Every structure is written in C-alpha cells, then in structure tokens.
C-alpha cells in the first residue's frame, strides 16, 4: 500500500535516494502519486496486489502507516498483527513467524536483487580470490 513519500527531494532526501536513482518530489496530486507507484511496481516487477492511498491519506491515518509499517488482518476483520513504526521497528520476520504459525514454514525462492543491485559474490568466487 503506497502512502506519502518518506524521503522526497523537496523534504528529507537521503544520499541513498540519489545513489539508487529514486528521486521524487512529494506528490501533490493523485496522478503524481499514481505515477510514482507505477514506477515502483515496474522497476521491481512487483507481483502483489497494490493499492495507492488517496490524497487525504485515509489509509495512512487509519493505520498510522507512515513511513512504513506492517499489519495482518485476520479472517474476522480483526488486527492480528501490528508491526512497529518503520524503519527502526519494521520487522518482516515477525510477519513470517505469524504466517508460519498459521500455515507452517513459509517456503519461497530467495529474493532476487533489484535491477541496479549487484549480484552477491558467490562463496566459491571469493574462495578462489583468496
């Protein structure tokens, strides 16, 4: 769920944003917000259902979501897990543990690196160098 930008160019931009070529001003219109959300999903080939908060920040306000946060809503519409405020208390492992407790160990392939991210050096290659 896309909510207002955390480090836009016209607010608290970080060096990492420039390095990663993620430089956007804080959206002032819904079309600006949608454009950034679409850039994100295309760049990372994001495979999951995606929602964009409205310009009144309704979802953000309802869930105290900014800058990043995780929730699980159970089948009865109740909050089953409420993550801490990101980035310091943003902890996907807790979500995985919750899901594992419900469905058993989660199995999926290792995450692929982002398009401009270098592949991690393989152990064999490191061993040969040394």
């Amino acid at each position, binding site marked *: 769920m896309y909510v207002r930008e955390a480090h836009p160019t016209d607010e608290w931009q970080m060096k990492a944003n420039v390095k990663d070529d*993620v430089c956007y001003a804080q959206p002032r219109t819904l079309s600006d917000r949608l454009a950034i959300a679409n850039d994100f999903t295309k760049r990372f080939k994001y495979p999951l259902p995606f929602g964009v908060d409205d310009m009144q920040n309704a979802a953000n306000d309802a869930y105290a979501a900014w800058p990043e946060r995780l929730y699980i809503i159970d089948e009865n*519409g109740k909050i089953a897990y409420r993550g801490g405020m990101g980035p310091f208390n943003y902890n996907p492992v807790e979500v995985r543990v919750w899901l594992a407790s419900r469905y058993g160990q989660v199995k999926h392939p290792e995450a692929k690196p982002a398009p401009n991210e270098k592949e991690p050096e393989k152990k064999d290659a490191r061993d040969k160098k040394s």
Partner: protein
Amino acid sequence: MWIGISVGALLVIAFIALSVMAGGPKDAIYMVRYALPHMHRGNLKVGDAAPDARVFALSGTETFHIRERTGAKPLVIVFGSFT
C-alpha cells in the same frame, strides 16, 4: 542560571543523539521538520476491528476498500513508499 545551563546541555545532547540516529546534523533537522510530524504510534491494537479505507488501484480509475480484501484469508498489508 544552572537550570538554564542544564536545559541547554540537555538540548545539545539530544541534538547530538538525534544527529547520530538520523545520519548527521542536517538529517537531524530534516527529521524534526519533516518526519516527526508524520510519525504516529497509532491507537490500533491486536484484536481491534481493522479500519477501512478506500484506496486506488494502480490505474487510478478504480478504487477498492481494504475490508473488501479481507475475509477468506488473513491479509498482510505492507505500507510504504518508493523513497
């Protein structure tokens, strides 16, 4: 006078701590100016009814409600932005 010095010293220590946490003095100022006003712990607790909100699909022409996506299975919501 000592009270003033103590308060001043505490403010300096707080600013240094914030600078270390944020990444530098400039980041500390930006954090106070731009981040802290938007960071809220919130009142939701585990067991509370999940609030609803209307959100847009990526097309911008369609909308849906968060609660429309709940019911059959647990719903994991990842809130965040690009930057």
